């Protein structure tokens, strides 16, 4: 439900009520900053009210703001429990492949989120900086919505990575960058690019070498960015169909890295050479 359906006059009594709870009735006034925060909290919860709840009411009138907020807040709480449960089920199988940023963001960061998240007075606060970058950035949402989406992406890339031997992944990461454990890039992206490059030279799941790089340089130099992109999409699509039951969500998630990859390839084939895409010296 769009919180803009409600005017300030309708929302102010709801915010006033929330402010009283925020101050435990100990303060008659709050700063502008606090008042803005609580207004955002009310709007955030109202936005979580699905249209389904509104259809339960008379279609000619919308829910009173207080009711919309209460139902929306309930939805936020339900989402928190749902995401927490999903996280709890997922985390035992999580592997960071010794990358510190990955480990700390997912295991400590998200775990800590559920301890400190304030669904009542600050539900739009994501708290975490989510330092480990996912292939699709989580920027358009906040609070529990951001964590839910971030978790979706982490689970997808873990599904991709867990399909491969752990030793292979560590081998690829070490070949790419001896300091990968201290770095802040996306692990799945590194592995995916190696696999796609390997597919081009018919190597499958194996580490590409200097001879492969020479072949790839020649092959990629002759192709436009769009042509390369299309080929990568086809290879990825085939991979996902063959090994991941055609998981469209996974395909769309991994696909998001390929535009940037092809831009890097285009620059590399023209200037620096493609070895820098696969091996950081």
């Amino acid at each position, binding site marked *: 439900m769009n919180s803009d359906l409600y005017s300030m006059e309708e929302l102010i009594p709801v*915010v006033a009520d929330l402010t009283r709870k925020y101050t435990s009735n*100990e303060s*008659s006034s709050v*700063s502008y900053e606090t*008042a803005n925060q609580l207004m955002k909290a009310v709007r955030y919860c109202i936005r979580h009210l699905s249209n389904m709840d509104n259809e339960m009411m008379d279609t000619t009138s919308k829910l009173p703001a207080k009711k919309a907020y209460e139902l929306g807040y309930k939805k936020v709480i339900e989402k928190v429990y749902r995401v927490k449960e999903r996280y709890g089920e997922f985390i035992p199988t999580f592997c960071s492949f010794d990358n510190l940023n990955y480990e700390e963001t997912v295991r400590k960061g998200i775990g800590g989120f559920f301890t400190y998240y304030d669904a009542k007075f600050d539900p739009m606060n994501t708290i975490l900086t989510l330092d480990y970058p996912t292939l699709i950035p989580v920027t358009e949402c906040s609070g529990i919505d951001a964590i839910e989406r971030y978790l979706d992406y982490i689970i997808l890339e873990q599904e991709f990575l867990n399909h491969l031997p752990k030793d292979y992944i560590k081998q690829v990461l070490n070949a790419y960058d001896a300091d990968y454990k201290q770095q802040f890039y996306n692990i799945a992206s590194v592995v995916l690019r190696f696999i796609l490059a390997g597919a081009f030279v018919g190597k499958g799941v194996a580490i590409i070498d200097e001879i492969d790089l020479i072949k790839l340089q020649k092959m990629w130099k002759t192709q436009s960015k769009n042509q390369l992109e299309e080929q990568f999409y086809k290879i990825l699509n085939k991979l996902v169909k063959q090994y991941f039951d055609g998981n469209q969500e996974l395909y769309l998630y991994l696909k998001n890295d390929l535009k940037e990859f092809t831009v890097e390839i285009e620059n590399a084939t023209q200037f620096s050479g493609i070895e820098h895409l696969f091996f950081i010296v």
Partner: protein
Amino acid sequence: MAEQDWLMNLQKETQLSTLLETNKFAEKFGLTLTKEDAEILVQERQNELKTQQRVEFGQGVLEKLVFAFSDSPYIYQDNYVDVLGRLQEMFYLYKNESMDQLSDDELIEFMKEKFDGECQGDLDYMEDTCLEKLAKWIRAHNHQFIGQYMEDLDEQ
């Protein structure tokens, strides 16, 4: 817009009548507010809230200030409105300066104790010394004050 004006006027009338109701209590100490006095104080409240960038959803703190300060030996009819106005101004300022770590009652209690005590009714002195000291202490310690400030400050 007409509806908004009407609502604001209703709120103002409510605040005025609530403030004038306090006369029933304060007149025991020889203090009364006229309608004009109450209007001045209500307007000053609006101005102070804007200056201090605060929002108040209820009736305001004037009523509490009247109940707390009416029995002060340093307040009499001639300075009643001015003192209430200054107290209200300091109240909102020091709610900010103390980072909202103090409840309304705690701050009012502190102000009353100092006003009647070491400040001997001098509002400027109270603001420049006791309230400043309190605010600095809170900012330095960021401590949850409720019910404990007296003992902690005495230890200083």
